[in-house]
């Protein structure tokens, strides 16, 4: 009788996992369409909740006493931290938050593989070679994702420079780490000695760091997408280790779709994935310009009053928002300015670069938050043909996305990225805090263009002054 109950409960659990799998597939499908995205995500959350709840019917977990309590404590702790952080974090800090949540998932997957191996060894069983292989894969991919995401976070948070970090002997070091990892895997497979797994864990953490350091800040979002895919694969690997279809399918779904998404993102930037990942390796970045020498070149800086008049009497004004607008929390003031201009009969629209902000689609989220109507947002491809007929291109806290070097300077790190052609407008107004280069760390010729007027200062303050100036004009 007992066995019957255990059996049916086990079957029920497998069936619930199957329902969760279907839920995840539908969730991913929904997330790809603007209409169903939110419902898709909620469906995914429901599927995950169901599967997690059902896991507690597992006899080993239910009767594990102290372990059960500890698991509940860990879950409570995680929830208590994750919910407020996810709810309170500023929309501008979203990319680094996604990086962190991704990294910890990779870390969990790596730990699962390690613990399962420890468990098998403690039982005195020498695991089959393919089990060891699964463990090694889980440890390798999960750890790379964990430390890589951590570095991505540090870069996006600007705790270290967003520029590609290169150092002498970089290729040699990468090569040594790569070979060492390969050798370790072979030795670990042959001997089955658990010490090699620990060493692999450490080396994989190092690999994650040295893999991400040379990637430029502007490319980090694509990298996060790739690491997201890695974590998916690490989760799938731990599914293999634990003989669990739910983890295999969910992890593989994310792994495969993540690769596709990464490709979509890099093509939105006009770059190939290898170019993004490896362009800084070995090569010294040319055309970095940098801060030095900036002061010596003449730029024209104007007053809000003059620019206000220019805007008020323009026919067509294009606002090109960038991350600086988001940092200054100026999206609401930008909307006020657009409204004030529209009231004066000026045609206004926003030209949105696909990677404006810090992630593809980031700017759309930020402007949606400020209630800017969708019909005033034009995607880059739609906006560019109209740029030559614009009287004013108002660049608010953007830099790299309007940098002509992306089209004209083959050595530039952003070469090949499509840009918004602010340079084609009659007048160009830059709202910028300083002459510092953008996130990609490269100088922008457009700042020195004779058509350009600089308005230095906090984007929100400056926009506020412009609103007043437009009203007076």
């Amino acid at each position: 009788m007992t066995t019957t109950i255990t059996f049916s409960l086990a079957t029920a659990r497998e069936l619930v996992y199957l329902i969760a799998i279907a839920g995840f597939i539908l969730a991913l499908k929904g997330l790809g369409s603007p209409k169903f995205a939110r419902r898709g995500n909620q469906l995914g959350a429901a599927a995950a909740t169901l599967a997690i709840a059902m896991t507690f019917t597992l006899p080993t977990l239910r009767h594990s006493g102290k372990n059960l309590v500890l698991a509940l404590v860990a879950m409570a702790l995680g929830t208590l931290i994750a919910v407020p952080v996810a709810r309170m974090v500023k929309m501008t800090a979203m990319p680094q938050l996604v990086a962190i949540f991704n990294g910890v998932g990779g870390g969990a997957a790596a730990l699962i593989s390690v613990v399962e191996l420890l468990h098998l060894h403690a039982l005195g069983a020498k695991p089959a070679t393919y089990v060891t292989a699964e463990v090694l894969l889980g440890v390798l991919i999960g750890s790379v994702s964990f430390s890589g995401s951590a570095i991505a976070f540090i870069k996006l948070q600007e705790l270290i420079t967003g520029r590609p970090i290169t150092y002498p002997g970089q290729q040699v070091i990468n090569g040594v780490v790569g070979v060492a990892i390969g050798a370790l895997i072979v030795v670990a497979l042959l001997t089955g000695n658990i010490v090699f797994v620990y060493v692999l864990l450490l080396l994989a953490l190092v690999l994650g760091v040295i893999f991400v350091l040379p990637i430029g800040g502007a490319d980090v979002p694509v990298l996060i997408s790739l690491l997201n895919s890695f974590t998916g694969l690490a989760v799938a690997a731990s599914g293999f280790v634990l003989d669990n279809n739910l983890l295999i399918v969910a992890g593989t779904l994310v792994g495969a779709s993540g690769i596709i998404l990464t490709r979509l993102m890099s093509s939105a930037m006009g770059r190939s994935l290898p170019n993004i990942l490896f362009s800084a390796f070995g090569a010294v970045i040319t055309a970095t310009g940098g801060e030095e020498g900036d002061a010596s070149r003449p730029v024209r800086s104007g007053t809000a009053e003059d620019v206000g008049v220019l805007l008020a009497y323009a026919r067509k004004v294009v606002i090109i928002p960038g991350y600086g607008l988001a940092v200054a929390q100026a999206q609401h003031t930008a909307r006020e300015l657009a409204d004030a201009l529209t009231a004066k009969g000026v045609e206004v629209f926003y030209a949105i670069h696909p990677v404006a902000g810090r992630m593809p689609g980031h700017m759309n989220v930020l402007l949606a938050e400020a209630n800017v109507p969708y019909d005033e947002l034009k995607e880059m491809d739609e906006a560019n043909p109209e740029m030559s007929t614009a009287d004013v291109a108002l660049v608010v806290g953007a830099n790299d996305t309007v940098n002509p070097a992306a089209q004209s300077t083959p050595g530039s790190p952003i070469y090949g990225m499509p840009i918004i052609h602010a340079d084609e407008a009659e007048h160009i107004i830059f709202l910028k805090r300083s002459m510092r280069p953008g996130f990609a760390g490269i100088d922008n010729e457009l700042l020195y263009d004779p058509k350009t007027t600089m308005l230095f200062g906090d984007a929100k303050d400056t926009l506020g002054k412009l609103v007043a100036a437009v009203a007076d004009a």
Partner: protein
Amino acid sequence: MTGIVAYLTVFVLAAFVGIEVVSKVPSILHTPLMSGSNAIHGIVLVGSLLIMGEAHGTAQVVLGFLAVFLATLNVVGGFVVTDRMLEMFKGKPNERVRPPKDDGPGTPA
């Protein structure tokens, strides 16, 4: 060994499904999709719970505890943050009309 082949079959099929499902996504949804799929791999929490159930000895329990904690951050934070992002994408872009006039000063009639 048949077990591993069955799992490999599932793996390959799931990979094809994953590729099919996101073949075309508008760029405005790239960030939410990344974040949403990030939440989905948070299901690794189920795996963390499984190992916690059978963990013996300090090392296994400590690492298992850590795995449960990290996975919870991933799954809970992932879904919450994605929902917050998507909250702002109400309706299809073209269906959305300008908010009513009482929206604020300077809104044109």
